[in-house]
């Protein structure tokens, strides 16, 4: 029999693993959306303690923004054959990531010092839960960065498809936790 058909081209616009990460990001986003909706609903019911979000959370916002920038520079350097800049920026990102978690911890200590405890009025509890759950996701990102660091220093520098993909996945996730924090802090400031 004759075959006269035009077939749609077989194509993969996006790597399956990258797509899978996007899907994972969607589910993490749903988890935070649920908590933020709960925040709004609970706030509307009254009996809601109002307090100012400590400035220290703004500093940490700067830290994580900076870490996204250095990671991006590291990726650019990796792609352009600058092994040194790739490694340096990766270390910087890692350090900034740790610094972010430490800053968040300082923020929680500050909250304690002004009398906002985890167990008091839900307005404080929600702040701890949102920032704590976010910090847990940042720790996951730091884990990924650690793996990236091991790759960067243990393996001889070489741009291969698989290493490019690994770095892109790490970067995608890290940018996500960065943007997620900005989303959270803007939400918290606007909602208080």
């Amino acid at each position, binding site marked *: *029999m*004759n075959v006269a058909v035009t077939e749609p081209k077989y194509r993969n616009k996006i790597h399956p693993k990258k797509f899978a990460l996007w899907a994972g990001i*969607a589910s*993490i986003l749903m988890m935070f959306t649920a908590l933020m909706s*709960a925040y709004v609903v609970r706030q509307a019911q009254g009996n809601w303690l109002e307090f100012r979000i400590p400035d220290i959370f703004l500093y940490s916002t700067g830290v994580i923004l900076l870490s996204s920038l250095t990671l991006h520079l590291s990726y650019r350097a990796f792609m352009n054959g600058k092994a040194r800049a790739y490694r340096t920026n990766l270390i910087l990102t890692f350090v900034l990531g740790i610094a972010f978690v430490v800053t968040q911890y300082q923020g929680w200590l500050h909250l304690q010092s002004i009398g906002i405890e*985890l*167990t008091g009025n839900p307005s404080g*509890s929600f702040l701890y*839960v949102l920032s704590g759950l976010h910090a847990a996701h940042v720790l996951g990102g730091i884990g990924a960065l650690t793996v990236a660091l091991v790759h960067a220093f243990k393996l001889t520098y070489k741009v291969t498809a698989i290493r490019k993909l690994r770095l892109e996945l790490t970067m995608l996730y890290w940018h996500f936790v960065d943007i997620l924090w900005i989303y959270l802090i803007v939400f918290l400031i606007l909602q208080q």
Partner: protein
Amino acid sequence: MASVTTYDEDLLIKEQGYDDHFHEHHHGDKYQSGFITHYIFSMDHKIIAKQFLITGMFWALIGAAMSIIFRLQLGFPEESMTWLKPILGKWIVVNDAGIGTLAPEFYYALVTMHGTIIVFFVLTAGLSGTFSNLLIPLQIGARDMASPMLNMFSYWFFFLAGLVMFLSLFLSTGPFSGGWTAYPPLSALPQASSGSGAGMTMWIVSMVFFVVSVLLGGINYITTVLNLRTKGMTMWRMPLTIWAFFVTAILGLLSFPVLVSGLLLLTLDRSLGTSFYLSEIFVNGQALDFVGGSPILYQHLFWFLGHPEVYIIILPAMGLVSEVLSVHARKPIFGYKAMVYSILAIGFLSFIVWAHHMFMSGVNPFISNFFVIFTLIIAVPSAVKVFNWITTLYGGNIRFTSAMLFAIGFVSMFISGGLTGIFLGNSAIDIQMHDTYFVVAHFHIVMGIAAFFGMFAGIYNWFPKMYGRFMNETLGRIHFWGTMIGAYAIFWPMHYLGMAGVPRRYYKFDSFDTFSHFADMNKFITIAAIIVFALQVLFVINFFYSIWYGKKMTTKNPWGATTLEWTTPINAGHGNWEGNIPTVHRWAYDYGKDGNEFIPQYVPLGENEEESH
């Protein structure tokens, strides 16, 4: 009219197929070498599907056996249960006269565990886990899932969730007993009931593992469907099974994380003393410290998962049934595109109806109106699907195999259970019906029995693909007719109980006379339940007997189906196809076209042939 198409399957796939060089890489089969990597920590989607199925069957038997025990209590409250003492131990309290009674707290634990196990472990993992794993790669023409490793983890997280839940059954304080929805304060205060302490902690741990399993699986299913379809397999050529699994996975991915959020806040309330869900509570006359929480908040978070969850259960069954009806009626599915759009519509609507579970919890009645309207709108895509199933059957050359019988049974159950949903979706009628046996009857028929029927249809139909043998048809038909009649015998009377206002979850009804005239009806229901349970044991025997001794499959495509899974070898190894992957040229429902009995998807269109839609 074009002449009857003739084709040589092997030649077509060899010449037209897509060569992905799979078999040139030795890693293709490497991780199937030993017993452990093949049968236990397997990364082959076909083995993982069987693992999900058999684990699901194990849980189904436990969940069903629990229902038999609490049905005995409801049907025969005066009878001695001493004979159960060897199994249930201290939960059967024997008095001086030797009369054993079921401990009330364990009755509640049984009801709770029955719900949790059947909803999550059997009808979510056992149904969508099994068939998404088996059919997605086979029907879209992929060697395996996008990430076989995550797929393996998905099963083992499910196993771990099951293990924790199973161990919780043996706690000296008993498993959690506050209902499968785990509403606070019963779930939030460890001192609230005997199961609220360690039992509830293990329930939460188990559920978190379970959510991880669902997410890993779901991410894989979505990625595989979108990225690994074979050449020519456009979205509009996918079988309805794949559409159903795809939308199911999206629902799971978006709704289960919300449950995790809800459980996170619950855990903080339980162990760190926050007040998200708790407010001004007295236990044993003592005021607790909690101030300012809202138990309704938990209900919102729970049902934001909980409602999509019922569609996570029913959509895969719908997909399986659509495929089985079409194959065994030898007709194209009626209204393929309408079927896809209604799956999408159901998926979308499932996210904006959750508060219809909460009409009586004190939510604003004006907000209830919103949820009433969207709930009733779900009837529209559901009715479209029912209409299309019936019109697919109409004038078909129907083969009444066990798979087909269960698929038709599914349609019957879905109609009966769906109609009562229209009653319950009205917030005014719900004032009378809420928390009565009417609700129990409704959801057991529409998402319990119906989903089981879809699962049975799938098992009977794809058993040859899984094990290279057929299940026994005679036993299958006995299984069908007994279950069909028995299931109606169990749940039909419950509608009358519910309309009379008999509340669900009660341990017994002898403290007041209002419902005493239902005693015989309760006996009848219990006897029917025991018979239906026995038939499921028969099914399990048939299943395991057939794995080793069933009639052997001699041809690759015993049902004469068009889809790609039947082009793989009878006992397909890792990678599914020995040579090239078949290329797809048409949709999955070319039955009875131009004088052909059926035309498989890999056959190119004839010269004057038009593609069907």
